[in-house]
């Protein structure tokens, strides 16, 4: 699975304890540290970053963080998904191994609304308020105002990593990794120039020219959404009363490594009461707060969702069964209630005013609506906040499905019907670039006007240069993702499931 030879240099990388106590050994330690190789140093950076990035959750949910780390080592792409913070620090650290200054930076361009985690698997389908199935970006947990060019780099890296996996596991041509990254960047530039000319923004919708990969995604979303598959998966009908209740158990059982896939766990009475209070507040934050009467939001059941996401794997997430439009159990709603986390941080970069939002949950919802082609892509998108907890909530239907790199690998391997070609995936990459560009260009910046002007001004007429620079970075960074995945495996072997972290309080 990891063809790059990773001999002793990486095994040694797990040992980062470079310092000793005692003044007498000070000089010895100095030289010992200085003698550590690049690989050891990289493993130390990774080790430190993962602890810092997960510090709060290591204290609160150590078992789930352990699961997240195990999940990350199962695939370089999942590793990439779980290390958005490392990516930003690597990309911005002048002493970092992949540092590449941009020729397209500007003050205005560093205040664009960015998603915080642009990678291929964060593009997916929505059922909008008017019943249209469309594809848009769908993870704004760490969305923040920041540099647009860095986000294009992350998307290019994501496609490059996916491309290499397609090469290694599905027999794609050797240059697929570069072609996919280039396609995404070209899609981005294409959309920016189209918007500059005053053309309509891209809309990747059901019935439109969306390419094979997104057509497949939309088709499956329509199929599963129309039959309310979410109710079959996440709820059960009581055979005696006919009432619908939330399902508790494994929708898909955990893997052999103990990592949850899709499980709904029971909640305490205190959690249930907290969720009910949140739901009561949340309905007032919907895009059209008067569209749905209060009785539709009666809570019929609550379960803790385990196994979702990678970066968000350890955070609080609940599935809430609501009454829905009528008393009938057939039109109940399932709401996905996800704990809000901090926004992407660009160290040392002052963004005045520093806080534009009441809390992180409000930020997520505001930025989602601002970024999407329609602010009611999901009419049930809203937020609630209580004490130190904030949640953003959206409908949980099977109309929502994400791009999946594993599915791409599977479809590329096929020999019979349903086989995808590299060209199909290139087309999808191109569209993800367009969607990202549309969001950057049309959403308001920190200063108010849309980001298009800042991006166009920074690009000048040098699209080729930007493409070249972004690809250069992607080609440089993607191998680190593969090596780091292996570094993490070694670190887990040598330091244990929590990477040696010692919680202040004993685990619950």
């Amino acid at each position: 699975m990891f063809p790059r030879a990773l001999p002793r240099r990486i095994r040694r990388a797990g040992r980062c304890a470079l310092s000793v106590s005692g003044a007498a050994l000070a000089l010895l330690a100095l030289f010992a540290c200085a003698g550590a190789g690049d690989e050891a140093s990289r493993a130390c950076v990774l080790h430190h970053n993962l602890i810092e990035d997960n510090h709060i959750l290591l204290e609160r949910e150590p078992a789930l963080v352990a699961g997240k780390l195990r999940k990350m080592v199962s695939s370089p792409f999942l590793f990439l998904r779980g290390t958005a913070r490392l990516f930003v620090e690597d990309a911005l650290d002048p002493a970092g191994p992949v540092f590449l200054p941009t020729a397209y930076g500007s003050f205005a361009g560093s205040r664009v609304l960015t998603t915080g985690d642009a990678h291929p698997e964060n593009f997916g389908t929505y059922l909008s308020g008017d019943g249209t199935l469309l594809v848009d970006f769908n993870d704004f947990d760490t969305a923040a105002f920041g540099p647009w060019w860095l986000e294009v780099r992350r998307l290019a890296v994501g496609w490059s990593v996916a491309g290499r996996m397609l090469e290694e596991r599905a027999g794609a041509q050797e240059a697929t990794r570069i072609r996919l990254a280039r396609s995404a960047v070209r899609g981005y530039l294409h959309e920016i120039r189209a918007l500059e000319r005053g053309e309509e923004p891209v809309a990747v919708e059901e019935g439109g020219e969306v390419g094979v990969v997104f057509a497949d995604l939309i088709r499956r979303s329509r199929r599963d959404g129309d039959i309310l598959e979410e109710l079959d998966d996440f709820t059960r009908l009581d055979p005696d009363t006919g009432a619908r209740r939330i399902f508790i158990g494994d929708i898909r059982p955990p893997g052999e490594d103990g990592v949850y896939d899709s499980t709904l766990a029971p909640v305490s009475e205190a959690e249930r009461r907290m969720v009910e209070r949140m739901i009561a507040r949340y309905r007032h934050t919907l895009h059209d707060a008067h569209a749905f009467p209060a009785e539709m939001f009666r809570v019929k059941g609550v379960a803790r969702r385990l196994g979702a996401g990678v970066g968000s794997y350890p955070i609080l997430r609940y599935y809430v069964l609501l009454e829905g439009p009528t008393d009938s159990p057939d039109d109940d709603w399932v709401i996905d209630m996800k704990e809000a986390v901090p926004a992407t941080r660009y160290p040392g970069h002052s963004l005045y005013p520093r806080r534009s939002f009441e809390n992180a949950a409000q930020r997520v919802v505001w930025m989602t609506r601002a970024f999407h082609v329609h602010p009611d892509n999901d009419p049930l998108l809203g937020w609630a906040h209580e004490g130190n907890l904030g949640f953003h909530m959206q409908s949980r239907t099977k109309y929502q499905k994400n791009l999946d790199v594993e599915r791409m690998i599977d479809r590329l391997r096929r020999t019979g019907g349903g086989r995808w070609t590299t060209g199909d995936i290139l087309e999808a990459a191109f569209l993800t670039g367009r969607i990202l560009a549309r969001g950057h260009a049309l959403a308001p910046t920190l200063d108010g006007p849309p980001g298009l002007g800042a991006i166009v001004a920074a690009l000048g007429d040098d699209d080729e240069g930007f493409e070249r620079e972004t690809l250069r970075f992607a080609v440089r960074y993607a191998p680190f993702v593969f090596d780091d995945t292996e570094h993490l495996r070694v670190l887990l072997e040598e330091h244990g499931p929590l990477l040696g972290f010692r919680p202040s309080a004993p685990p619950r």
Partner: protein
Amino acid sequence: MDLQAPVTLRRALSPAAHAAAVSALALFAALVPSGLSVASAGDRTEPAPDDDSPVLVVAAELFGGLHLITGPSSFSEFELGRAELTTALSPVPWAGFELTAEAIRSATSESVLGVDGDSLVFRVKRAWAHASAEIGPLAGEARVGLIPDPFVEAVESDYAFRGLAPLLAERGSFFDTSDLGAAGLVHALDGQVGLHLAITNGEGRNRVEQNSGKNTTALLSLAPRVLETRSGDAHLALHVAYRDGSVGTAGLRNHRLAGALAFSHPRVSTGVEAVRAWGYAGRAARETFGAGLWAGGTVVPRWGGVVGRAEILDMDLDRDETWRFRGTAGLFADLLDAPDPREAERLRLYAVVQFDRATERAAPLPGAAEAHDETRLMLLFSARGRHAVR
């Protein structure tokens, strides 16, 4: 120099160690038990060294003001840079303890939420016990608890402009101001030579120990009195420190070599600091260098003076063009007399201009250096005071 309890307290309360009591009168009114007398300006309430009765010292520091920021974007804010309260008790002349609380914002830039939004809350900055002894020509002290960093403590005691800006050693995250551990100090020649050895966790004041390594810091201080003038004595202080350190669960190297030279006179104060880091900002491989220079003097005694600071920080010694600069210059006015520059800032006002610049590679967003460039007009106050009772 007598290193019995009173002197211990003076050092323990650094950098307010030698301040008189009046400057933060309003704050003290709420803090000091009724019946305690408050000294007038210049009236030292330091108990006599030969008095063996218990000593209670309360000290406070407040720094704050208004920042008007210009640059690619404009912004203004009132800020409270420091709000500290120290209580120190010496039940016997040779031992005691100190507790310092400081105000901090309850949410960092990465927090989802702080306490009731982002309130200022108090937390423990230092909490340590000490005991001292004299053996022949040597005077020594042992410390244990959440103890001050040797280098920052020593240099700050000769730095008369803390209300304007922290030392680069602190602001640049080279040193945390306190850490959990133990320390020993030995002084000779009436305090003109000192050795300070500290062993600490290495995680600073906001983390429990994360690795098996300990930070070991050794500091050598030379502080001769070089000149007697009509307006007071002139002092020279040289501090050299080395730290063998590790930080985080990964045990990243976190070594420092630091030095400072300070000259202080009642009318003039100047100094230079430099720090070399092996391992910085969570990157064990990174080597970083920072240097700061400060100078200030009274032009019109008591009422006015000029001050300037300059700092450079090379983020990565292995690469070119990784420099950050900060310059600060302006005026200050002391509203209360300070017989010694190290007792200054008892009630001081600053009006300064400060600018930040960075080279392309060192800017927070590389390639967009102008996003980092800022100029600030700062109107600041600093108030420091202490009161000792038996």
